[in-house]
């Protein structure tokens, strides 16, 4: 299989796999190595990867993908409640339902294009959200969110004779609890290896691989053609609608999977997951990282989740410590300036970051990396020639 892949793609996939598996090592020093945030990185990475297949390739800007995420979550929690605490049926049904919902919503919304399409998807998602919050409470448990209960039937588990006792059950992959963590200390850093994260990580890598295959497939080329020129496409004998719809459904299934994984790592499904702000978040992740690039959306998802979870946690006490090496007046001045941007001000940083990136890096963070890489290679090239001339002059002596 890998024989048909570019060498660069193979390297990218291997590198990606290594980073994902070594995440606790890599992210602990920047304070992001704890299980929940790593899980969020992986889950929203999947969500953004899928969204990118629709938006990055076909150019259709959906503002309603959070609906499929929410559907995936609800489905997974119901699967836990009714069938089994095993995540496999949960994510299977989450993908299925995500796909079904996206097929229906996509089929209708894709009758329009441009902003009209965006508003249609937004409208559907908002309807899902509003109904889930209020009228559909028997299914969604409304504001509180759908939770597990000791008294849930769990037919398959009961049939298999698994008893969770009086405590709330935990999702459990053939004996591995999704919330179990092994903790070790290495070079003074406490590293946490969480089974739920590695479950997500494997799926993230799989999703990344699938996304890569799609990008490099004739189908992916057709999706790019949809974005580029629909007129030419139809006069070339291709029906644009099923291509766009297929991309929509695939991305809906990714979203369903992401939603299912949210429930696997944390068995609660709330309506606000479907709100337009959540749909907007994945749009921002994708654009921030670089729409249409393979890796960009995953990076964008990571950056936004990092800001949300880490920047929001800095309070004055932490800042005072961070600047404690400075003279006291300077320390206070810096703390009061910095605290505008962290803690309750983390939104400000995020907003400013959006603006800076889109102004200076039109292609998102991936473009930044590309520029750095060319810069470095130019520098390296310059360095090499410098060395060569050194050697030449040395030889001349």
């Amino acid at each position, binding site marked *: 299989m890998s024989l048909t892949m570019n060498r660069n793609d193979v390297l990218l996939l291997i590198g990606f796999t290594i980073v994902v598996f070594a995440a606790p090592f890599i992210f602990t020093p920047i304070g992001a190595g*704890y299980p*929940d945030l790593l899980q969020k990185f992986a889950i929203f990475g999947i969500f953004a990867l899928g969204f990118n297949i629709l938006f990055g390739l076909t150019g259709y800007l959906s503002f309603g993908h959070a609906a499929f995420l929410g559907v995936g979550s609800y489905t997974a929690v119901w699967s836990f409640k009714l069938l089994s605490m095993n995540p496999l049926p949960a994510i299977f049904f989450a993908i299925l339902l995500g796909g079904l919902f996206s097929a229906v919503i996509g089929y209708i919304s894709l009758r329009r294009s441009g902003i009209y399409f965006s508003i249609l998807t937004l409208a559907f998602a908002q309807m899902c959200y509003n109904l889930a919050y209020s009228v559909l409470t028997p299914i969604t448990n409304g504001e*509180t969110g759908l939770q597990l209960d000791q008294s849930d039937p769990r037919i398959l588990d009961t049939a298999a004779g698994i008893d969770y006792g009086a405590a709330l059950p935990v999702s459990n992959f053939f004996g*591995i609890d999704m919330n179990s963590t092994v903790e070790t200390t290495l070079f003074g850093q406490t590293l946490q290896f969480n089974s739920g994260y590695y479950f997500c990580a494997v799926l993230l890598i799989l999703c990344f691989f699938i996304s890569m295959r799609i990008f490099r497939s004739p189908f992916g080329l057709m999706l790019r053609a949809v974005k580029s020129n629909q007129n030419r496409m139809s006069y070339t004998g291709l029906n644009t609608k099923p291509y766009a719809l297929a991309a929509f459904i695939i991305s809906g299934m990714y979203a369903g999977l992401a939603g299912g994984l949210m429930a696997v790592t944390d068995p*609660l499904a709330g309506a606000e*997951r479907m709100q337009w702000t959540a749909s907007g978040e994945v749009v921002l992740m994708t654009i921030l990282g670089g729409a249409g690039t393979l890796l960009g959306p995953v990076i964008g998802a990571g950056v936004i989740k990092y800001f*949300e*979870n880490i920047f929001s946690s800095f309070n004055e006490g932490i800042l005072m410590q961070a600047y404690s090496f400075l003279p006291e007046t300077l320390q206070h001045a810096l703390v009061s300036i910095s605290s505008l941007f962290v803690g309750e001000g983390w939104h400000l940083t995020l907003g400013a970051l959006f603006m800076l990136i889109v102004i200076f890096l039109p292609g998102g963070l991936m473009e930044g990396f590309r520029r750095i890489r060319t810069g470095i290679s130019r520098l390296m090239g310059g360095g090499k020639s410098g060395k060569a001339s050194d050697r030449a002059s040395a030889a001349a002596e």
Partner: protein
Amino acid sequence: MSKLYVNRRGLLKGTAAAGVGLAAPTIFTSRAWSAEYMNEPTGDTVTLGFNVPQTGAYADEGADELRAYQLAVEHLNGEGDGGMLSTFSSKELKGEGVNGKKVAFVTGDTQTKSDAARASAKRMIEKDGAVMITGGSSSGVAIAVQGLCQEAGVIFMAGLTHSNDTTGKDKRANGFRHFFNTEMTGAALAPVLKNNFGSDRKAYHLTADYTWGWSQEGSIKKYTEELGWETVAAVRTPLGAGDFSQYITPVLNSGADVLVLNHYGRDMVNSLTQAVQFGLRDKEVNGKKFAIVVPLFSRLMAQGAGDAIKGIFGSTNWHWSLQDEGSKAFVKSFGQKYGFPPSQAAHTCYCQTILYADACQRAGSFRPSAVGAALEGFSFDGLGNGPTEYRAADHQCFKDVLVVKGKENPSSNYDLLEVVEITPRAQVEYPAELLGGELGPYNDGA
């Protein structure tokens, strides 16, 4: 298959499945073995997690909660004037930290969203090693975080959450609530409403269309109908509707003479302002003066509603104008530090921190089950609400409930409510079974 119950810090202690896990390579030293319960503090500090809304509609309420937490931590560590520690009936805390450890804290932003609140709480538990999580400004978030703390094996001391479900249908062994609930509001408010408006009234409810709203509507209906009131209609309004005019105009000619606004936060600010704008406060119906009731009041909402609040009845957990020693000490200590009096949210958060610390001290441990046992059935006084008891059956505090009214001539921007009546605790008590739910066993996380 044998029972598998593996926790975060616990290595896989199942049966054959253990081999599948992530065995630690030998170069690592694992500290997982030593912990007896989740995040057992090993150094000379104990970390508490303050999870409050810092962005979104409740950011100001969250900011006030955070102020109270910081004050509580100061007092626990022996800084400042000690606040309510000196009036608290339990004298275990001496301002020397808790169990010989200094109290440290971490903060997080709930965004008033269940997902964000859980993510933030998880960070504090998994990364920062918090042994207790507290805070919040809505019931959805409280229930979500309470569930998380139960799963993770830490104590949750709820902040501002008024829904019955928090200590009813969705109660958890690891969760405790000091704040009152809709059931108590109904029981406390109804007699006052009867005294002021009589027993022959027709009520029209506007209810925020989510669980807390329904719970509030149910309680008020139940208790007012017992008094002989008639409920003309109960209309559900979408959360965050902004303009409520389309829900208010039907009230005008409905024959109702009381409007009950089961709204909180911005919804309440808007619906009340607009109801007053439509002349409902000054209207006469059935030969009686029209009345508006807002079951759950807070000072921040009163500030948002401005003049519209004048003369409106409601209930609240605590108010800074109370004259008992505990309240006076707390207001003094808070006011001197921040320059204005604390809100009820600040008060409940302060109390929860002190109560938790005291329970740890009495238990001599931070182990959730031990702390819980120390809190269960604990009777205390001197924290501003009179004699109070943490009921063992549902982990709900029972205390007097304040019925308040919007002041006609406020002397400052903080002096917006006046206490009309202090409904005694006996009157608001209900059997724990009434609200259903199961505490389940404590989870120590190991």
